[in-house]
């Protein structure tokens, strides 16, 4: 199976030919790769080098925490790639995005109103939790479609606060 994997400005063609046999940008690599704590901690030995990282799924793809650096990694396989190229779209259509409460708490401030356009990083909501005022910013550009909370509300973890379209 062939993949095109990218993180930041870097992009790699990775072909997986069996459990431990890779071609990375055309170069063969034999790997010893396994989960070591039975969860999301993985150990990789390749060409004698030993690496350990936390690999976890996110809504965007996968994130890899390696030696104190966080990499947001997106992966496409051949089929997805062909599909994308044939339809000519350069970004995956996203549809609606539901902003959820990252933890339970009290809504202190709501900086946006329905219909308002927001950019990535714009302050949207202040949630008080763990003795702190926590600012929740927009993860994406878009328009506030539905606002489901108001100041003074107590919210549960993962409760949808608002929907971006």
């Amino acid at each position, binding site marked *: 199976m062939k*993949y095109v994997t990218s993180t930041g400005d870097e992009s*790699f063609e990775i072909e997986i030919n069996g459990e431990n046999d890779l071609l990375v940008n055309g170069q063969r690599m034999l790997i010893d*790769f396994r989960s070591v704590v039975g*969860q999301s901690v993985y150990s990789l030995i*390749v060409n004698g080098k030993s690496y350990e990282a936390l690999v976890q799924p996110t809504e965007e793809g996968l994130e890899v925490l390696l*030696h104190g650096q966080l990499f947001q990694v997106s992966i496409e396989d051949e089929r997805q790639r062909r*599909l994308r190229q044939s339809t000519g779209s350069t970004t995956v259509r996203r549809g609606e995005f539901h902003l959820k409460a*990252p*933890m*339970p708490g009290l809504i202190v401030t709501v900086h946006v109103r329905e219909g308002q356009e927001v950019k990535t990083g714009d302050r949207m909501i202040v949630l008080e939790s763990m003795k702190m005022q926590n600012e929740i910013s927009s993860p994406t550009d878009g328009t506030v479609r539905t606002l489901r909370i108001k100041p003074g509300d107590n919210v549960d973890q993962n409760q949808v606060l608002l929907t971006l379209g």
Partner: protein
Amino acid sequence: MFDKVLIANRGEIAVRIIRACRELGIETVAVFSDVDRESLHVRYANEAYYLGPAPSRDSYLRGDKIIDIALKSKAGAIHPGYGFLAERGDFAQQVEDAGIVFIGPRPSAITAMGDKAVARATVTAAGVPVVPGTEGEGNLSDEEIMQIAPKIGFPLLVKATAGGGGKGMREVSDIEELPPRLNAARSEAEAAFGDGNVYLEKLLTNARHIEFQILADSQGNVIHLAERECSLQRRHQKLLEESPSPFMNESLREEMGQVACKAASAVDYLNAGTIEFLVNEDGKYYFLEMNTRLQVEHPVTEIVTGLDIVKEQIRIARGRKLHATQEDIQLSGWAIECRINAEDPYNNFLPSTGKITQSILPTGPGVRVDTGVYPGFEISPYYDSLISKLICWGETRGEAILRMRRALEEYRILGVKTNIPFHQNIMDSHRFMAGQYDTRFVEERFSMDQTSGKQKEHAEIASIMATVVAHRESQRSSQIVRKSERDTSNWKWIGRWERINR
């Protein structure tokens, strides 16, 4: 003399105090809220009593219940830890009135130092320099503040008189900004402390936050255990402390240490306390406030002085004389503490709650961990986000940094996000290594996206690991689900994988 102590706290500091008691052969009484029944402090104590629901005001702030439990369990003393009731003079007084020893300063000293304005007036009278501001003038009206502000000069800080932890605090860079910020500070202070009074303080730029640890016994002996460097902060929250300070020299240490002892003596201080100073680039220092309790960061001082501060607190409360004189205090090597918080350094340091599914501690030479959590423990949204304190010692500052680097790399906490990567980046920062940082460093001159020589190699490794994980998971899930086709949306596919792996 008491031989049983009630610990009116939770988390790592409750565990820390229980350990000190155990090592002195003293029995311990824990108290716990609804969500803390399985906390380490409950498990490690000899006795444990239920306090109330999770919110602090219903549990750890219920001084009346805590005193009742102390009486019922025949605890002869109460240790308040830090936070919660630790700096409430009225609570300390109620404890004493109930015939129980309060392991801390006298109620009068707590009250004097607890009101920031009174504290500044008191130490000024004792000849200790304070940051220019509206010291000791208390309860100023908005009009008065608008008049005084230009005399102090901008930038300045509006601070809550009853404040702490950055609440009710606002920076003001010119007179125009003052009215709205003043308003915001007052309402935040009113909400947080039930007291909307504020005062003004000059904002020192390029300043360091350096504090001195004080010990004072009931025979009138007051000594200091040298300084802690606490400038590494984010939004006025300390993240990393060290002792000694890379900024300090011997003569300044001696001078500031004496001033700190004088400040403590001014309120007839007893037990452990900390005098906080701001120090500017020229070595001019100003009293900031006194914390009349054990500090979070006390371990760095313990490690370089060899003293166990919590045991000293207990000895002092038992009426003993300090077992070290100022001359006995010699600093040996260097200690650094990283506060490991459940928060996401890649997402605005947003707190993270959830169950800690795995915790593998760094160990070995020169490493100390103070924590109240363990695998299976739930980080709740009710209390602060401190998971543990990782403290490393080295013969030199360089060795301490290198040791901290390897310890951070070893530390594995799964189930919640932590700020370990933040500390790793700090340890790699050339400015930090050179000791060149002040209280604005994290906010103004530090980024999590620093590029290093390893970046490119690591990008490739990260991509390989992610791809193999995704490949194996997709193969596994196609076997399980027996779908002939994979979903075309990456997002959905990951979603399915998440569901499968839950």
